[in-house]
């Protein structure tokens, strides 16, 4: 069984939001209709996004790290948002594990958003239906696109290659290898939702060349 997913490398994400804007551009232009923007050029702009990048400061000064944290639907293997849907609009595809919303069946009751511990779903305030990341289901199978472009928009846009896309049930896939070799982890594993998306942790790197590191060490004295 295929389970498509994103693997996000926190070690190289620079928080540029290219994945956010490319996601918005692709998904607002599709046949499913635009994602609303309210007050886009005024105070307090807000709107529907399937993907957001948040920033956290980790550690205690002076030993802090800035972690940019891209966040979208994790396409859980045991998605709590699906069984609660009263209309069946929310579903998980058997063939590739993508969790989707049928916008024509959704009544906008928001129960699925309550049942998602990750806050991955957003109600579109204009269309009044629940929306979420589709893993660009309308592009990854599009045979009119060159093979290399049949990936989610966010993956293609990432300038640091922090986003990998593939089948985590295929042992030999790039994503599975990355999870195995780089200690890829899931979010809130204690909730037993088995998210398909994984994150690759930060790595300790000695980026500074020897002489520069010595200079800095002297300066600290």
């Amino acid at each position, binding site marked *: 069984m295929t389970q498509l997913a994103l693997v996000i490398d926190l070690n190289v994400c620079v928080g540029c939001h290219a994945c956010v804007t490319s996601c918005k551009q692709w998904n607002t232009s599709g046949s499913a209709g635009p994602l609303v923007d309210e007050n886009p050029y005024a105070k307090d702009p807000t709107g529907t996004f399937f993907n957001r990048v948040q920033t956290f400061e*980790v550690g205690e000064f002076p030993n802090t790290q800035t972690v940019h944290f891209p966040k979208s639907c994790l396409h859980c293997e045991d998605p709590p948002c699906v069984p609660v849907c009263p209309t069946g609009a929310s579903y998980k595809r058997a063939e590739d594990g993508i969790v989707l919303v049928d916008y024509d069946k959704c009544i906008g009751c928001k129960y699925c958003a309550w049942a998602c511990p990750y806050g991955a779903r957003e109600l579109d305030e204009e269309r009044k239906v629940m929306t979420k990341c589709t893993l660009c289901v309308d592009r990854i199978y599009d045979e009119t696109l060159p093979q290399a472009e049949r990936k989610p928009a966010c993956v293609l846009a990432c300038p640091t290659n922090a986003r990998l896309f593939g089948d985590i049930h295929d042992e030999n896939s790039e994503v599975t290898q990355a999870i195995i070799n780089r200690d890829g982890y899931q979010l809130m594993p204690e909730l037993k939702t088995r998210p398909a998306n994984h994150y690759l942790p930060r790595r300790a790197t000695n980026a500074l060349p020897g002489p520069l590191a010595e200079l800095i060490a002297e300066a600290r004295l």
Partner: protein
Amino acid sequence: MNPAWAVIFLTVLCGAAQGLTVALLMAEFVGTGHATPGAAHRFFMGGALIALALSVGGLIASFFHLGRPERAWRTAAQWRTSWLSREVIALPVFMLLLARYAWVHAGGASPATILMLLLFAAAFALWICTAMIYAGIPFIREWSSPLTFINFVAQGMAAGFVLANLWAAFAAPRWVPIYAPIALCLIVAAFAVRMMVLARNRNLRPQTTVQSAIGIQAPKVRQVAMGAMGGTFNTREFFHGKTAQVMMGIKWTMMGLGFALPLVLLLAGWGMAQVLLVAAALLAIFLGQLAERWYFFAEANHPQNHYYQSIA
């Protein structure tokens, strides 16, 4: 969570309707002691119509919670997995049985025992469905408890019996001295259950932390940016945005209007045909339960809030 008024009205109005139905069925089984059967039929029919009107009010309120109310008919589809879908079935079933029950009484006949048992079962099935919508989300710890069900039943029964007491003052005076002490006991019981809920929620330990939410095991994690400037669905839906003082005020409104004032009013009118006092008690308990339900929603902490600490 950000309390939704539509759901608050839905659960409070339907809860009172269910409680009133239980009160009517109790009188039905014991016997009303009316001088004429016609008067008894009028009491039961009128009571059932009041319960039906409350349920209709709740049903109408529920539509205001939907983004696409015109598609509401689809909601009965997933009854195999969704408690919300089951509630959507249970509520009309309850209303249909109530209507049938009122109709039989209107015709001057006594309803069959099976109809009354079904009506009783429907009232409780609706309570189970409503409560499980909330209790069935395991990671919203404030809701995930049998107390959610017990509290919904307790509040609905208290309101329903005060309402039955008031209706009996008009249509079944001999039942006032029976309903009044039961209503008093139910208000005390509802208060006790609500205290248990508050005590439980005060001592809850969160299942998740910001560390498990982003998967970084550092003792100190501070959010610098939420990824949006003007707020998002996530900041609007999952935070009530009220100050601690407002929360305290609503909690005391719940205590005062929901439990203390109705108790005092019912006791003040004890043994007298004080319709105004009972009516005042009913109004107080209604307003108090709106506050109670608001607090129920507001007190729930959603794990997604880890990702929105800046406004938490």
